[in-house]
């Protein structure tokens, strides 16, 4: 086809094109926002495992997600260290239920604690090395800069300089610095402590035992050159049945699957995205079918000239595909704007990366092609005899 007929048809009436692009573009924006919301919720829940310096992660057999707080015996860490192919295994502690932050004697709110031995390189948070010495002192912690403002520290204020009187579970707490992690479904804020301080604030964590004797996660690093999956299988064989070994990715996938399957979140946003898709199909159908109706005489003429149905099918699909590209770009731009606004306004993690944009583009193309197929009957029915 030398003349780009689909292109000319689409761009001939500028005004209609603008309305069409707005219609399909907003369907694109809708799908982007729903996907963005869904990802915002999932991205925040996997931040902790994402940041762990782990090839493999040990967790309790009963562990389902980071909210389940199922723990295992520290002995498993020692046992795992003896496994061939393992370079290092570090205990990682989390605690949320029953941890209360109290600032200035009045603001009280639950907060999540992350703890480990400061000499263990378990998590990729650069501030830990900077403040390591200060964190060794009794009763000290780092505060997550992205904690919600309800901890009595105004956004932007330096909590170390301000140093409000803070108690954690009725014991004085001194902030020595900040780090950056982010909030999720469960916790509105985070603190990082040395394992010794963690034990001091939570003496009853393991009733009757050392508070550090039960571990939330085991951070396993594999020796150079060892195969991660082989080491995983070896660890699984070596360790008793009360713990499970996951690759880091498998652990993250499990966390997402937990939120997706056993909470309403995944379903709700999937449905929102589906509606966006259907809206797009309808809008796109209207545009293509209106365009076809307007040009029935031309089509009939072309048919009379001997063009085959195949040519028209190709034409309609081309027009649909062009429409999807043209409306995807402004839709993407508007969505980027919305993502930025939302991220600023709410502190949510709105990440728009290439695979996500590509996914929405595939949906947009599918949406327009669906409408194209629906509208095609009209061209095929155009009869040269109707012309005159």
């Amino acid at each position: 086809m030398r003349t780009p007929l689909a292109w000319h048809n689409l761009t001939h009436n500028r005004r209609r094109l603008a309305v069409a692009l707005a219609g399909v573009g907003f369907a694109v924006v809708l799908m982007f926002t729903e996907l963005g919301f869904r990802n915002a919720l999932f991205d925040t829940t996997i931040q902790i495992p994402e940041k762990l310096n782990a090839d493999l992660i040990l967790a309790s057999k009963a562990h389902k997600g980071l909210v389940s707080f199922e723990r295992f015996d520290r002995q498993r860490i020692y046992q795992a260290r003896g496994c061939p192919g393992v370079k290092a295994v570090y205990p990682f502690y989390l605690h949320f239920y029953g941890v209360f932050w109290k600032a200035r004697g009045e603001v009280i709110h639950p907060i999540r604690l992350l703890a480990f031995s400061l000499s263990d390189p378990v998590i990729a948070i650069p501030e830990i090395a900077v403040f390591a010495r200060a964190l060794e002192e009794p009763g000290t912690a780092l505060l997550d800069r992205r904690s919600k403002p309800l901890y009595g520290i105004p956004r932007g204020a330096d909590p170390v300089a301000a140093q409000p009187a803070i108690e954690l579970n009725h014991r004085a707490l001194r902030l020595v610095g900040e780090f950056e992690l982010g909030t999720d479904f469960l916790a509105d804020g985070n603190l990082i402590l040395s394992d010794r301080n963690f034990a001091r604030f939570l003496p009853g964590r393991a009733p009757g035992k050392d508070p550090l004797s039960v571990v939330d996660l085991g951070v396993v690093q594999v020796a150079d050159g060892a195969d991660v999956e082989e080491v995983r299988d070896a660890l699984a064989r070596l360790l008793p049945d009360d713990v499970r070994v996951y690759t880091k990715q498998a652990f993250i996938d499990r966390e997402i699957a937990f939120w997706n399957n056993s909470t309403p979140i995944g379903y709700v946003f999937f449905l929102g995205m589906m509606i966006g898709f259907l809206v797009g199909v309808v809008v796109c159908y209207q545009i293509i079918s209106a365009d076809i109706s307007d040009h029935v005489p031309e089509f009939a003429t072309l048919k009379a000239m001997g063009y085959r149905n195949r040519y028209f099918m190709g034409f309609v699909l081309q027009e649909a595909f062009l429409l999807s590209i043209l409306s995807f770009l402004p839709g993407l731009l508007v969505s980027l704007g919305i993502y930025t606004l939302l991220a600023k306004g709410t502190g949510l993690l709105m990440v728009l990366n290439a695979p996500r944009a590509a996914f929405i583009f595939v949906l947009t193309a599918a949406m327009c092609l669906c409408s194209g197929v629906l509208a095609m009957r009209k061209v095929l029915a155009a009869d040269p005899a109707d012309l005159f």
Partner: protein
Amino acid sequence: MKTPLAWYNLAHHKVRTVAAVAGVMFAVVLIFLQLGFRGTAERTASLVYEALEFDILIRSRNSGRLSQSRPFPRVRLDQAASAPGVAGASGVLLNYLRWQSTRGATRPILALGVFPDAPVFSNAELQTKLRLLTAPEFLLIDRASRAEFDPANGAEFGDQDLGTEAELDRRRVRIVGHFQLGTTFDADGMVVLSQEGFRRVQPAWPSKHVSLGLVRLEPGADPAAVSEELRRRFAEQQAVDVDVFTRDQVIEHERWVWLWQQSIGLIFTMGVAVALVVGSVIVYQVLSSDVTNHLPEYATLKAMGYSDGFLSRVVLAQAVILALLGFAPGLALSQALYALTAWKTRLPLDMTAGRVAGVLGLSLVMCVVSGLLALRKLRGADPADLY
């Protein structure tokens, strides 16, 4: 207007009209769905409070959502009970505990510890069943709790689970009854124990501390005035560990927490905003393409001497018809989706009369405004352009 031109216009191009109606319908569904989701966040805020019997609630200061309430000294209840207008006050213990079924399923569950003899619940079924809690290891479970808590039939707790043992924070408990409350974003399962039973599974719970104080008033007492008095008394005693709310205030506070502080509510609120914008754009697109399609006919009518006013009425009538035609199936489809969502997620979405009226009004407004905008095109239609 003797000939119902608007109707003929729509009835003549069936396929096109169906597409336009479908457009309006999906816009309606989109808005209903987002409102419904946002409604679940609001429901999360009020569900447990609405089941509790109180006029004034005392809870620890600044605990965000209900499940984050922390223990405060029970002496505050005694102080409240001595205030004029107060009929009585009872405490509720509340915490997330680790549920483990005999088959090994584990999941955190929201547990309430109550005095079975006190008026605790306004939910009649719950209040009646409290007398089943005759031993510390006995508990009642919400039938609406998610299937992950492992009921015998794999779907919902019921009579077949009576007598079944389970563990709460690694202590043996026994199901002796069930009730219907519902799941929320805060808690997807709930159990009720006696206070004695609650303390048995939570040995570290501070003695003489409760999580919520349910204050009941004497008939005729004004909740606002009494809560003001309680606040004054607590301030006098420098009791900064608690907040005092009337029933409306605490639900309003919790609604604020869920809609504006928790990510999930913020997202649903923004979902509603996006749905409104997208819905309007789609309806405009539908009506404006409809007017464009009929432009030659309209121009002809104009040439025949019909006024702009007549044509405007035709377009507006068409807009209203499209709005109504799109709304009806949209409402039906939304109801189906509400039911599907409730079934899939156990979060009931209620199609309230207010919501139906609101969306109907909104779709009429969207259609009429879009029609008016599309009319500008018609004003410019010149009979001379026709040929």
